[in-house]
């Protein structure tokens, strides 16, 4: 196994594109190293992108935030402006693993693992985040929900690497929240996850909403019908009921060791309702 630590993404992309064997990108490594140690994967090449310039930076601009691919969960949690603008995204990212894992894990890695239960992904999808991708043929930008295509599978082509995850600037009276269901209190994996992002007008009416669900389908799912249930309402009981119903209806889960299909469908609605109430509070609503 070879280990490379290039200083530019272009060089990293070339290394990956040229490799004939199994190649993996190493950012935080919190999933990769576990798989490596357990013999689940046997890589020929590891490309460490932590030395790439800008990979460890969070940049704030008028258009929003640009989160480098190797920024850790802990660094997101310490970024006051990001936390203020996108508390739901940061709380979701900070739920991953333990304190030790937080020092290494990245949202780009969480996205590219393509686990339907990834905690940060529903929050990124609800936030309307975009992924900037660098590859042998140049740069492209896609909505994050287009990256995972199935459990463990992504739409990235050979040689492509995520440069950054970009979050839009936040209009006034906006808020987001992420909740997951786990049987324990931490160090666990979502049985169901739900993120809600909303913007209110001066009267407390929802003008924009995005709702995403995790662990209830082969990929994280954006639920337009759930957003529709909120838009134009003051999130009264009827709207929240409609939201919960839309979320439950959007689920196509399986029975597995983490939960039953029936349980996931029911709890998706419960979490949506609770996350929406938190998001409203964060948006300055009642």
């Amino acid at each position, binding site marked *: 196994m070879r280990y490379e630590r290039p200083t530019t993404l272009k060089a990293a992309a070339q290394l990956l594109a040229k490799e004939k064997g199994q190649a993996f990108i190493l950012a935080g490594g919190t999933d990769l190293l576990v798989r490596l140690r*357990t*013999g689940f994967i046997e890589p020929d090449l590891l490309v460490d992108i932590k030395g790439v310039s800008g990979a460890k930076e969070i940049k704030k601009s008028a258009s929003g935030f640009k989160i480098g691919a190797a920024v850790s969960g802990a660094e997101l949690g310490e970024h006051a402006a990001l936390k203020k603008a996108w508390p739901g995204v940061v709380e979701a990212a900070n739920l991953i693993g333990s304190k030790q894992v937080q020092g290494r894990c990245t949202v780009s890695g969480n996205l590219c693992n393509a686990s339907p239960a990834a905690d940060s992904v529903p929050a990124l999808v609800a936030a309307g985040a975009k992924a900037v991708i660098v590859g042998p043929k140049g740069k492209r930008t896609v909505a994050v929900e287009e990256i995972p295509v199935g459990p463990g599978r992504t739409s990235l082509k050979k040689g492509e690497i995520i440069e950054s995850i970009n979050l839009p600037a936040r209009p006034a009276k906006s808020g987001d929240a992420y909740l997951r*269901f786990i*049987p*324990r*209190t*931490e*160090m*666990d*994996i979502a*049985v169901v996850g739900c993120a809600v992002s909303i913007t209110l007008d001066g009267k407390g009416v929802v003008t924009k909403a995005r709702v995403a669900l995790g662990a209830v389908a082969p990929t994280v799912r954006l639920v337009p019908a759930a957003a529709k249930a909120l838009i134009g309402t003051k999130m009264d009981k009827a709207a929240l009921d409609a939201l919960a119903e839309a979320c439950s209806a959007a689920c196509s889960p399986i029975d*597995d*060791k*983490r*939960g*039953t299909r*029936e*349980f996931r469908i*029911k*709890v998706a609605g*419960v979490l949506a309702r609770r996350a929406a109430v938190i998001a409203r509070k964060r948006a300055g609503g009642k």
Partner: protein
Amino acid sequence: MPLDNAPESKRKFNVVGTRPLRPDGIDKVTGRARFGADASAPGQLVGRILRSPHAHAIIKKIDTSKAEKLAGVKAVITRDDFPDHTGGSGGLYDTLCNVMAREKAFYEGHAVAAVAATSASIARAALKLIKVDYEVLPHVTDVDEAMKPNAPLLHKDMFTDGVDPKPKKPSNVARRFEFGHGDVEEGFKKADIIVERSFKTEAAHQGYIEPHAALASMGPDGSAELWCCTQGHYMVRDVCSQLLGIDIARLRVTQSEIGGGFGGKTTVFIEPVALALARKANRPVKVVMTREEVFKASGPTASTSIDIKIGVTKDGMITAADGTFRYQGGPFQGCSPAEFGGMSAFAQFHLDNVRAVAYDVVANRPKTISYRAPGAPMANFAVESVIEELAHKLGMAPIDFRIKNAAREGTKSSYGPTYGPIGLGATLEAAKNHPHFKAPLGPNQGRGMAAGFWFNFGGQSCVTLNIPIDGSITVSVGSPDIGGSRASMCMMVAEELGIGYDQVRAIIADTSSLGYNDVTDGSRTTFATGMACILAARDAMKKLCARAAATWGIPEDAVTWEKGYAKPAGANAGNFAPLSLKEIAAASPGTGGPIAGHHEYSADGAGVSFATHICDVEIDPETGRSQIVRYTVIQDAGKAVHPSYVEGQFQGGAVQGIGWALNEEYIYGKDGRLQNAGFLDYRIPVCSDLPMIDTQILEIPNPGHPYGVRGVGETSIVPPLAAIANAVADATGVRFTQIPLSPPRVLKGIEEAKKAGGKKAA
């Protein structure tokens, strides 16, 4: 000096009952302590094990030729490298079959071959080159399914023992046990209310943090050494040498520090494999299990299916108690704790009519081994759930119902013996008077309780105590320290000799240094090895007195030992200044040489132990999630030698019970493969899941120990399953009869009860 076994309940202790620092503490928190995987030897190889992917399969052929040719591979072993020295049947033969599969692989993860290589990656590559030709057979993992007449049969020659006449048809039921007295049918006739329910519990793993690890070395002369983490290195020595066909004295086993055992390290798994690899490779070999291997191929506890029927009169007297206990123990007979389940189930009650029938059942799962009070928690869950339900039907407070029917001194226990002084009533009264019992509950919260029992054990111990010239003391014991026992041993020696705790150090000696010591299990070590320490100290004391007598020129029996000094027994013995232990030790080279104390025996008189637990749980009614919000353990310790470690045992058992009750379970797919062989999906509680577990130590002295000590390590895991299920029933109005009380199960129960419009069982 004769042993005075009358408990010195009025004795004023100087060291016992205090809370000094543990001698192994600094090493453990600084990383200096050496655990199983920390051992190394010059030229050591990496050993790895190939395991069956099938739950049940005939092993037709194993081709190792390609693996043997791989550069860096020094040995490949299979069943052919384990000729049978056991006589072909019985528990030892089953152990042989388990450490390396013979005709059949009985469960997913069953060892079928092993390699020793110069690196881990070569070893891994070599495993892939071994070709095993399997004939896959139908499998069964559920205990009720395994008992059905048409179930896939694991052993063609298994005819249920304990049934008269012995069945002519083989089955997966290895043995039937029956315990009890009186006439339950007559008893039920006298009952005004009868509750009858069926329960199921899933298998749990001990969840020790340290995976099994062993380093083996075997010389061309046949002498061997083994370093491993185990609860009983003498057991490891005896079993390994018998499996490998070598003299017991040729194998020296050294026990490492242990990162948790809880009963799971009371047998062998990888140790004979490491030795066989070392023998074949003629190099030391280290084998360390991965966590996945620990889950799939060590020894979890049994899954069970239990029926309970209890009858009471209107005024709350139990007239009869009857139970059927089916315990799945993996593929071999005698492994499930069915017998202990049946024996312990009704032990906390004073009963005229009681019957417990228990079945030891085999299935295609890993060979189970002890887990803290083996067999008792599941039986207690079933019985104490029915007790709570009966109390509600009677309109009686569950605590009063339990007190009314509690076993007491003189009660003929449900498993036979008549109790001496026991602490059950005291724990129940203490629970009733505890502030927890009266504290208000919040919304969606419920409170439950349960009382539990464990037998405790004595057994074989051998202790040597050496006094060097500065008067410091080394106590060599052969009982692995899995719960702070070294500190307790030092405390009892210091107490006995009337010296300071800091003057005494305890080590765990290897198997060539002492006589046989039973495994650290059955909560025996502080009781039995502790008593051996006291007796070894008394032996040393006698010798110290003799040296003083010789120095003074007076008869030995004219010298007495008091608070660390030899003194003339009385005025007529002579007027000599007392000699301290240090002075006698310093003079020892000239007064007869080294001074040592020794004791070897098999201890009887381990006092039984009872506990009562109180639990508050909060349920999220929309998700079925449980949060334990308050938990109290009240247990009889006889005499708490080191109260902090006693409290630690109370808390640890409660926490493991909480995990088992709420989320821990072995989940099998239809293919008979374990789906959750890791700590991500086998959910033991994390710190933030738990409240601080409150404890109350009661001390009802055990007449079988000079200080009144009872074992405390196991009873604490017995009541939690029932206490939590009773609390959940209180919070939700739904009686759950299956654990774990995982959120999907609880939510389903709540929803179904809502639809049914009231209370029901789920």
